[in-house]
């Protein structure tokens, strides 16, 4: 069912073409799916542009593949910090009226959202 692709896999760069049509790091289908999940509507021409741009970014990331990283621990955070915590004390809250006034739609003190299942109408 899931046809997840490992988009970051390293590969011989010499075979690369950065053309939007033929790039096999990321396909137009992948970009379309990601856009749909992010609720972004892309015109066909934008799909072409972004597929090309995303492929270039992935390609840049694949430079890492040139390095010998055996024995290097995966880094999960660029910041060399740990245990940043706060005390369990109540702080300032937002006013519900202010917040709901900026929401697209509200009802009875709650956010009103479109049906969560089914196609948006």
């Amino acid at each position, binding site marked *: *069912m*899931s046809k*997840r692709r490992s988009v970051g896999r390293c590969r011989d760069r010499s075979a690369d073409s950065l053309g939007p049509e033929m790039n096999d790091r990321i396909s137009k289908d992948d970009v379309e799916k990601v856009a749909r*999940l992010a*609720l972004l509507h892309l015109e066909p021409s934008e799909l072409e542009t972004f597929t090309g741009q995303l492929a270039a970014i992935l390609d840049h990331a694949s430079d890492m593949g040139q390095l010998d990283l055996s024995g290097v621990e995966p880094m*999960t*955070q660029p*910041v060399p*910090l*740990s*245990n*940043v*915590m*706060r*005390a*369990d*004390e*109540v*702080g*300032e*809250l*937002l006013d*519900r009226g202010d*917040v*709901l006034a900026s929401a697209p739609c509200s*009802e*009875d*003190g*709650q*956010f*009103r*959202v*479109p*049906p*969560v*299942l*089914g196609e948006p109408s």
Partner: protein
Amino acid sequence: MSDFDESEWETVIGLEVHAELATRTKLFSSAPNEFGGEPNTNIDPVTLGLPGALPVLNEQAVELAIRVGLALHCTVQRSIFARKNYFYPDQAKNYQISQFDLPINIDGWIELPDGKRIGIERAHLEEDTGKSTHIGGGGRIHEADYSLVDYNRCGVPLLEIVGRPDLRNGDDAKAYVSELRAILVAVGASDGKMEEGSMRVDCNVSVRRRGETEFGTRCEVKNINSLRSLGRAINYEAARHVALIEAGEKVEQQTRHWDESEGRTHKLRSKEEADDYRYFPEPDLVELDPSAEWIERVRSELPSLPAQRRHDLVDRTGATPAQAGLIVERGLDALCIAAVDLGADGSRVVTHAEHNLADPRAVDLTPENLAKLTEMETGGDLSATQAKQVIAEMVETGASPVDIAKAHGFEAMDTDALATTVDEVIAANPDEWQRYCDGDGKLTGFFVGQVMKATKGQADGKAVSALLNARKS
């Protein structure tokens, strides 16, 4: 009981329990950890995922997570947070902050009252979601016209405790959840109220033929709100799997919803589609690496846990494991042990705790009064029936057993008076007496009952039996 041949089929169960941690504030923001009141009153920029808002970890939530981890015999390790991406309005920011490949607690176990050990794979921190209400279509999500969202619960700290698939029947699954709840409450991590949703149980069920070593395809059942539902849902789901396989069909991996009123599960979704959560390390939070000193300090402060308390109670009072399970659950174990330390008879104390102290106020009894009560029984000052009445009033009023017995005029019956009554009862029932003397054991109860009636329950049953026996020629 199951609706299939258990000699042929084995049920395999693994539970995922979400417990709300009893902090004052949310996991990543200083909004109060309170919900159920006016919607959207406990909200701040982090709760709503407003642009620029940054999460900061609540130290007390970590403290409670470590407490639970240690109580479950887990290893507490360096951990990181991860984004679980999904599109549903119960998280305003379109992802939930959870822990994925490096959870805070791993590899523990729980001991059930009967001694079985059930493995714990992990117990990790994550934030709760908001509450959505579906409007139109009879409140069902599939047919709703729109939904309303309350973010008060969004961001409340949860500990997700993932058990290994070591459970084999509904009763053990219920015992596991009870034990886990008792541990959560004992360490002060959560109130453990399943009906109110502060402890939520998702249940993975599969079946396989006995002797098979591979697991069958599993389904995850959600919306289980009580221990009773848990047992029912497991039995229903296992029977459904067996029926499918026996009909030559396959079990599809699904997430299913338990419907308590219909007593069945319904398909919510196929599992494969839902699994693509695109987890990645949360860039807004740094790693969590509790020091050895922190972990050891928490370990040294852990209270005595239910399994240990059961063992102690059995050792000190001679209670059976089943009695110990019940008494510890009622929180009466310390009372029982203290009464025995004051010289009370262990078996009488345990019998009272098991049969006469179901009232939650029983925890307020003093060991002195309980010990005194058993002493009055042993000394023959109170019959079993009277003792039961006295202990009920002790729970009710907190008065001493001596005062209560005096107020009711309960006194040890004079042996001569009791003997006279026994003789009168024998004289009034000559046929029954003959049969008793001929060895009809059933008549012991009859005579004891008659004497009890004549003395208005004041006689001691054992003393009556002894007198009857002595008069048998």
